[in-house]
């Protein structure tokens, strides 16, 4: 491939774009459902998601557990067939199911999984994992020496040096951080343009998270990668991502420049999320009463999601309209590119708080 040339491609070039991406998982039924109603049900895991990944930029996707973040990543990696919507790679619509087309796609879009303990096959050495990553996409070179050089290069990129200390180890012989680096190296073996990192550090120990995040940032800059950074830790999105999108119950609720989203959140859900994050500077454990969650902190059922705005049952500022009309993304004035899908910002109703 032409990764070196690509690396010099202009930043901000759109690599991957999701347009109205939707995924409904049919609910698989068992014998025990024999006696219940027979309507066909589905988990509305992701609905109408728009997302743009650009070269040299990190987009963070934040949201609570089960909000559909991983599903978005897997859809983008084409690991799941999508229910609706489109995925465009360099502006071209793509839909691959398997075979060489999928390989070609995988060569450009790679994914990193949340759990480095689970994403490496315990029976294979690091060498095997990386060699396969290179071989599949034809980067292994012709000779042993080529391969060895490529492996050394890969490990070097993820700061696992000297390589011989790691190559012949099994995953369980490495620490979590090292494993996640190997997983990143494996993704890099395909020389992709876009990396989809699904909570790459949430399973790691606090003291080593930073190292991995810094590595990703470094790679972004050096290889001019487009990165989707999925996390439930909004604070890390502030530090690491250029742009942050907030997801709730399968829908995007807010997006914009990371600093703006975290410092002046617009959507009530984002505000709740930020208010809930631990804050050492706060003296008591009390919440700001205005940000009180009306629900029990429970996300809604995705099989039968609430009508209108999915957050309305919990929203402290819910209006009658919220339970009937699906909010559209509305631009917020304070910074360019900042939007929220909330009727509070609908013009006739008045511009927010």
């Amino acid at each position, binding site marked *: 491939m032409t990764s070196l040339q690509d690396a010099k491609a202009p930043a901000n070039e759109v690599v991957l774009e999701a347009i109205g991406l939707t995924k409904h998982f049919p609910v698989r*039924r*068992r*014998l*025990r*459902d*024999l*006696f*219940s109603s*027979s309507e066909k049900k589905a988990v509305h895991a992701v609905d109408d998601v728009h997302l743009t990944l650009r070269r040299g930029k990190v987009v963070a996707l934040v949201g609570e557990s089960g909000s559909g973040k991983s599903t978005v990543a897997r859809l983008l990696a084409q690991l799941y067939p999508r229910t609706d919507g489109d995925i465009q790679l360099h502006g071209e619509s793509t839909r691959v199911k398997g075979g060489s087309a999928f390989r070609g796609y995988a060569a450009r879009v790679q994914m990193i999984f949340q759990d480095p303990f689970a994403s490496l096959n315990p029976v294979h050495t690091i060498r095997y994992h990386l060699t396969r990553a290179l071989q599949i996409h034809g980067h292994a070179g012709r000779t042993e020496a080529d391969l060895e050089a490529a492996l050394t290069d890969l490990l070097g990129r993820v700061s696992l040096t000297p390589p011989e200390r790691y190559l012949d180890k099994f995953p369980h012989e490495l620490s979590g951080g090292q494993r996640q680096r190997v997983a990143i190296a494996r993704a890099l073996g395909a020389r992709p343009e876009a990396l989809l990192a699904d909570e790459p550090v949430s399973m790691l120990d606090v003291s080593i998270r930073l190292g991995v995040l810094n590595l990703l940032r470094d790679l972004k800059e050096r290889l001019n990668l487009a990165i989707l950074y999925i996390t439930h830790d909004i604070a890390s999105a502030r530090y690491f991502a250029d742009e942050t999108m907030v997801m709730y119950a399968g829908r995007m609720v807010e997006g914009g420049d990371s600093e703006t989203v975290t410092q002046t959140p617009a959507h009530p859900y984002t505000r709740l999320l930020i208010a809930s994050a631990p804050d050492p500077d706060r003296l008591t454990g009390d919440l700001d009463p205005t940000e009180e969650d009306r629900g029990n902190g429970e996300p809604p059922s995705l099989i039968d999601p609430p009508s209108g705005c999915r957050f309305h049952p919990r929203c402290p500022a819910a209006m009658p309209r919220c339970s009937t009309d699906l909010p559209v993304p509305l631009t917020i004035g304070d910074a360019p590119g900042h939007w929220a899908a909330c009727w509070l910002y609908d013009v006739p109703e008045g511009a927010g708080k």
Partner: protein
Amino acid sequence: MKYILQRLAFYLFTAWAAITLNFFIPRLVPGDPVQSLITKYQGQLSTKSIQSLYVLFGLDKDKSLWSQYIDYWKQLFHGDLGLSFTFFPAPVSQVIGQALPWTLLLVGITTVISFVLGTSLGVVAGWRRGSWADGLLPVTTFFSSVPYFWLGIIAIYLLAGPDSFFPSSGGFDSGLVPAWDQYFIPSAIQHSLLPALTILISSVSGWILSMRNMMVTVSSEDYITVAHAKGLPERRVAVAYAARNALLPNISGFALALGFIVGGTLLVEIVFSYPGLGYTLLQGLGAKDYPLMQGVFLVITISVLVANLLADIAYLLLDPRTRKEG
């Protein structure tokens, strides 16, 4: 609705496929019932009677396999399993009907006892590791590796004999008639002791082992630690918390074992001349008695399918997680 149909279709298809195989497989065997009868009696039956037997069995008319198959299904839909050749002219349903209760009682009760006993010992072995119950394992494993029939024959040799309490064969005393009275029941129990013991000894180890392993696995679950932390009495932790949960995976095994009752212990019934279904099946096999073989296979097939269904239902009842909310 669609789902119920799908599930039903699954069971029906499995049953159909198995019954069809059951129909065709026995017919692959060379020979016919008449010849089998002649050879069985080694000279006691003159070759002159061959023709009369063909006429008797209705085998004198040539019929294609296919039309036999169609007839078979027609019969089945009328609940008719045909006439047995070995026990001509007894209907297969009668032959099965007289054998099935014995098998169900002997093997069924033994399987249940084996499961209960094995599981209880497994609970003890798994909970109090390193105690006497652990020492039981190698012994029972050894016995479970012994073929049933060998153990049975040894048991007869060692325990049955002139004036022994244990009769060597049969389901009850030859002078008795099956009835729920004080003569018959003790006799039936007495006759079932040795075969039951044989089955018990060779099957109990599996239950002990799987229950022990499940207990060990469950013992390290957090809720067990919590139960200890709650200061509950040890018995309650062991029974209501550990054993109750460890039992779940064994239930499906148990249901399947129930399904294998009929086909599983053929040889025990033979060794002890026990008037059960396994033994009947073997006679049918020897005599090329297609209707009987099919009938017994049908019973086995249905019992395995029903056992599967039971396993599903047992899970439904025992594991609240599989129950629907509301």
